[in-house]
């Protein structure tokens, strides 16, 4: 049995800008595969090539064994696609949008209702409300319902959690795990590195290239270095002082703490003392597990050095 998505040396340029520089990966059936990378990494371009909206300039790709160039019509009836920005009709109601997309795929809402119940169920009370009046999280749930209503075998979700509140984000990921249990392959992108751990496998993406493809755990094992989490009274000044310290290789803000990658032989108590000597109070430094974001920055840093 072929993989759900096969990507082999895929390249795409926009004039002088290289959006995809020859990426390759196979996504297995029933897998939740994450594309992790900052804005402009080429995630949306990869999505658009895979859902047959853009022609690649090089390489090949297949979805469910169907070539994205030659068999694009067959692919279009089998996949569900949710673009990066809200792409439903804001002046239609929740229910009108869903019914329209059902008709588009020549199915009825009723026959596939079981699949979307978990997601659309939350929207039912607002079904006569115009889509424009929904919150960010609600909009994404509606868009997901519309992308699912024809029971696609592969789901392409381009940044579904961007602009969504943390609670709804959590719920959306819960829904994706539900869909995975129903055998749907999911390719999902996100700029939030901490969401990577929710995927079966991830590709770290930067400037149109995959930096690494592995499970989130493998990524951390491979690239994770000793990481300290630091906090103090004046976080922004602390960040600058930590960066200036010779014992610190890298330091960046991570939530309510700063993540520090120490150089070999650096000592945690001494770093704290040095910070206190600079006038920082209530400095607290402890060991922490490196996250995907730490690894991402680590890999990008390494590549810059090599270059």
């Amino acid at each position: 049995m072929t993989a759900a998505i096969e990507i082999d040396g895929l390249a795409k340029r926009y004039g002088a800008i290289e959006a995809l520089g020859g990426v390759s990966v196979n996504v297995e059936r029933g897998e939740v595969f994450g594309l992790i990378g900052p804005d402009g990494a080429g995630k949306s371009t990869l999505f658009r090539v895979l859902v047959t909206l853009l022609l690649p300039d090089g390489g090949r790709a297949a979805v469910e064994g169907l070539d994205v160039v030659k068999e694009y019509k067959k692919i279009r009836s089998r996949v569900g696609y949710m673009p990066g920005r809200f792409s439903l009709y804001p002046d239609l109601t929740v229910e009108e949008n869903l019914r329209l997309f059902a008709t588009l795929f020549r199915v009825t809402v009723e026959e596939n209702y079981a699949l979307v119940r978990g997601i659309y169920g939350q929207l039912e009370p607002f079904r006569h409300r115009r889509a424009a009046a929904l919150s960010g999280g609600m909009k994404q749930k509606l868009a997901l319902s519309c992308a699912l209503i024809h029971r696609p075998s592969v789901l392409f979700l381009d940044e579904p959690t961007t602009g969504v509140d943390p609670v709804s984000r959590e719920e959306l990921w819960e829904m994706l795990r539900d869909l995975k249990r129903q055998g749907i392959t999911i390719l999902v992108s996100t700029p939030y590195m901490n969401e990577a751990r929710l995927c079966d496998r991830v590709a770290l993406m930067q400037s149109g290239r995959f930096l690494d493809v592995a499970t989130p755990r493998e990524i951390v094992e491979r690239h994770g270095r000793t990481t300290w989490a630091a906090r103090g009274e004046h976080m922004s000044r602390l960040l600058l002082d930590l960066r200036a310290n010779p014992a610190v290789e890298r330091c960046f803000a991570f939530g309510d703490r700063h993540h520090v990658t120490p150089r070999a032989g650096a000592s945690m108590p001494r770093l704290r003392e040095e910070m206190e000597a600079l006038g920082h109070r209530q400095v607290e430094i402890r060991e922490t597990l490196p996250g995907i974001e730490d690894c991402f920055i680590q890999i990008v840093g390494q590549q810059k050095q090599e270059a």
Partner: protein
Amino acid sequence: MNKRPFSTPSLFAAFARKEFYHIFRDRRTIMILLVMPVIQVILFGFAITTEVKHVKIGLLDPVPDVATRRVADRLLASDYFDLARVLHSPAGVERALRRGEIDMALVFEPRFQRRLLRDGPARVQLVVDATDPNTAALFTGHARQIIADAGRELAPPAGATSLAAETRLLHNPAMKAAYNFVPGVMGLILMLICAMMTSISIVREKETGTLEVLLVSPARPLLIIAAKIMPYLLLSCVNLATILLLSVHVLDVPVAGSLFWLVAISLLFIIVSLSIGIFVSTVTRSQVAAMLVSGMLLMMPVMLLSGLIFPVEGMPPFLRGLSCLIPARWYISAVKRLMIEGAPVTVIAREALALTCTGALLVALSIKNFKNRLS
């Protein structure tokens, strides 16, 4: 999986209905589509008028006599001309014209009556501001006719020796401007609704990204586009009926020819305009661009070159050639013939052919230009 597969007609209906929702839920769109045409017709009918009515006349009659009074009375007796001022010198004529106190001056030569009856020819001068040549020609033409009539009464020409041309105004004896602009406004409004509104509505789906989602579906894009333009086709028919009703009952411009063929040629023009709209949507990416293209590149030429404002016959050959490329010009010409002149349908064969060819070409171009993918 699809136990009850939806038929193509029901997909078509669903998307046409959706477009109706878009139109009726946006107040601005519905205003442009249904209210603006009515306002335009009424505006053109009553406010913008090129008819000769109550033209202010200045009279300069150095030596009044029976003949000059008769001529002046005849001129001022009509609704067309009103006496605004009695002038006393040629300099006064110019001053009054410049100040806008009068629109036209009637200047008699001294000893007018004697010349008229004995020495012949008696002369009378019409002085008019020709900044607007059309209006000036209209005023003087009207006045000359009346003066000539009065002259013949005062001094009947001897026998059959003298030759006089008599003008008869066919189809529009009262010289009403409405007769000229109703066909023009029909062309303008149908063009606006069909071409501009459809192109904007299609491009809006590009802009908001909904087209992206629609493309990733088994539905044929052309079917969706066809469903999209359906409401505009229907609303254009409503507008056609509104304009015709307004022109017959409010502006007193009757449909002189066959109503059936008038509607038929209008439908043909509507289809051509819709295909222009689709074509514009295939070459533009944003709503603003679509509006500029249909507004500047389509509306302006339609206004200027279609005969709505300036008669096509009076244009330099280059512009006249250019006007042949504008579908509205053919439509307006066909409506003038069918509706105003009451000509049989065979007369507009050339117009119908031109419209059919343009429509076929645009549909072909749109289909060729239409992309099944982005960019």
